[in-house]
Every structure is written in C-alpha cells, then in structure tokens.
C-alpha cells in the first residue's frame, strides 16, 4: 500500500475497505475449487507422498488417507498414514 492509499483510507468513512475481504474469500474459494475439480490431483499427491515417506519409514499403503479439510477460514491438507516400522538408519542427504 502506498502513501496515497493510506491517506485515502484514512479519509474514507467506510473504514477498512472491503477489498481485503473479497480477496481473502476469493483465495479460499479457489483453493476449494481447484482442489475439488481433480480427484486425480489427490491421487498423484498420494503417490508422491508415499514415495518420500517410504524413504524414512515403512507405511501401510492401503490405510493411507488424505483429504483437504476446510475450517471456516483455512484449508488444511490432512494426511493419515499408518506406519508399520520406522527404519533404523536413514541416510539423510546433506542440506
């Protein structure tokens, strides 16, 4: 926001503009829209997740569940991944 906008904001009677609200609502709506249009996307994500996690632990592939859980003002990726066994020594690539 530049100075000009701030001055205008201070002078306007309506207080905080409704645009922030619009932008935030839109952002959330699109997270839902974009996620819900493709069940394939979740499948791909599942596959990739499994690949990464299996480097560290043995997981129960069939029990894996992921979903987008929406609360009022956030959307979270919730994954439930049953573990069979954690590997003893994991080679971690240097960061």
């Amino acid at each position: 926001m530049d100075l000009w906008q701030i001055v205008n904001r201070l002078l306007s009677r309506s207080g905080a503009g409704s645009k922030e609200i619009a932008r935030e609502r839109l952002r959330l709506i699109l997270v839902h829209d974009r996620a819900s249009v493709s069940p394939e996307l979740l499948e791909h994500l599942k596959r990739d997740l499994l690949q990464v996690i299996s480097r560290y632990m043995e997981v129960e592939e069939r029990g894996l569940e992921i979903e987008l859980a929406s609360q009022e003002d956030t959307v979270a990726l919730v994954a439930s991944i049953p573990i069979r066994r954690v590997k003893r020594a994991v080679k971690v690539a240097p960061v």
Partner: protein
Amino acid sequence: MGETIVITSGKGGVGKTTATANIGAGLALLGHKVALVDADIGLRNLDVVLGLENRIVYDLVDVAHGHCRLKQALIRDKRFEGLYLLPAAQTKDKTAVNPEQMREICQELKKEFDYVIVDCPAGIEQGFRNAIAGADRAIVVTTPEVAAVRDADRVIGLLEAAGLNEPKLVINRLRPKMVRQGDMMDIEDILDILAVDLLGVVPEDERIIVSTNRGEPIVQERNSLAAEAFRNISRRILGEPVPLLDLESNGNLLVRLRKMLGLG
C-alpha cells in the same frame, strides 16, 4: 492464414459482447480484416451492440447446415472498413451447431480474414464448447468481483484442458475510485490470484451504455478512457507493447492537478 480468438468469461454479463465488438472494430481501424462470430445461439446480441440487427438475412446455423454459403451470411459493417459479422441464430438453441461445424466455419473464415473473433455465450456447457472449438487463442473477460474472478478461474482451467494455453485476461468495469478507497480488488490482486497475463483493463464507463444504445462501438470515440483501453487492447493483440492506461487521468481532480504540475 488468419487467427481465431475466442472471447470467454464463465460468468454472464461481464462484457464479452462489448469486448468482441470493440476489439473487432479496433482491429479494423488498425487496417485489419476482421470477422466477428456471434456464437451465443438463441441469445443473439452482437448484432445489436454493433447496430447491424436490421441487416441479417442468414445466420451461423444456416451456414452450419448448408442453407447458404458463408459469404451470404456475412454482414459488412459500412462504418469500419474490413469489419464483418456472422450473426447467431435467434430462434434455435445451442445444440443447433456442433464443435466440428464451428471448427470448419472458423477455418474457412481464416482464409479470408486476418482475425476471426468469436463471442462466447456465458456458461461452460455446449455453447462454450462450440465457441472454443475453432480457436487458436483465448481471451478471458472478468470484472473485479469475487464471483466473476472465480468463474474466470474455472474457465481458464477448461481452456487449458482444451489445449488453449495461456489465455489472456481483460479486466472490465474497473472503478479506480473504489480501488483507491480499498473497496474493489485491484489489477494486481486479480492477476496474482489467477496467474495469467493481462491483456488490458477497461474502466467502468457510462458512455459504453450510451454507445450500446446507439449501436456504435465506443472504440472510435475520443475523450473516453474505455475507448482508449479497447484501442490499446487491439494493438496488444497485434503484439505491440502498449503500456497500461492511467485510469485516473480523467476523473480525479487531484490527479489532474498533479498531472498539470508535472507531478503525476
């Protein structure tokens, strides 16, 4: 060989037909041969916006079904050299043509014209499928409102799924004053959310309603920011790098003052 551009939106009433008429006339003013195709079958509008409603003999459906030749259905706009209209049928419905027929018609028009501009109906059903069938590129029109931008996002996804990659965005009916007050999403907000390239921004302008009443595209008018915006959009379609309009330059006294003093 010319190029077919489809003008879409998802949400209805955001300015597709207005944009089609003005971009078409704008390209014609720049010396190009342009065919406008009204693909909104059953809700024919483009003829009225262009003031050509009394000259229709044949329409898109007649051409698709072989009731006349393509040339017979094309209406020449006498005011804009090189501008032609292929009107929609008013009494049929969207199933009266199919995507294959649309593709053929666009293909044939491209042999004659530099640009074929297709005015898409609202929605994402068959009318949309028909309208985009023959397109080489796409323009998405939105207004700075939540519902319109949301539908634009959906349409961008559908266009890309149909192989029309990187559609360009036109933001219509922007009100600089409301943006300044923080009561309307600005250009950056919308581009950020949709992640597409901007083709142009057209301000809210009462004179668009006046020009539509008269059946004359606004694009040729002087002293109208909306007209200038459409002229700039036409030039950008040709590949010219035209800077964005300063939408404040007319209305706001302070901005005008700043300009006069060389500060703006």
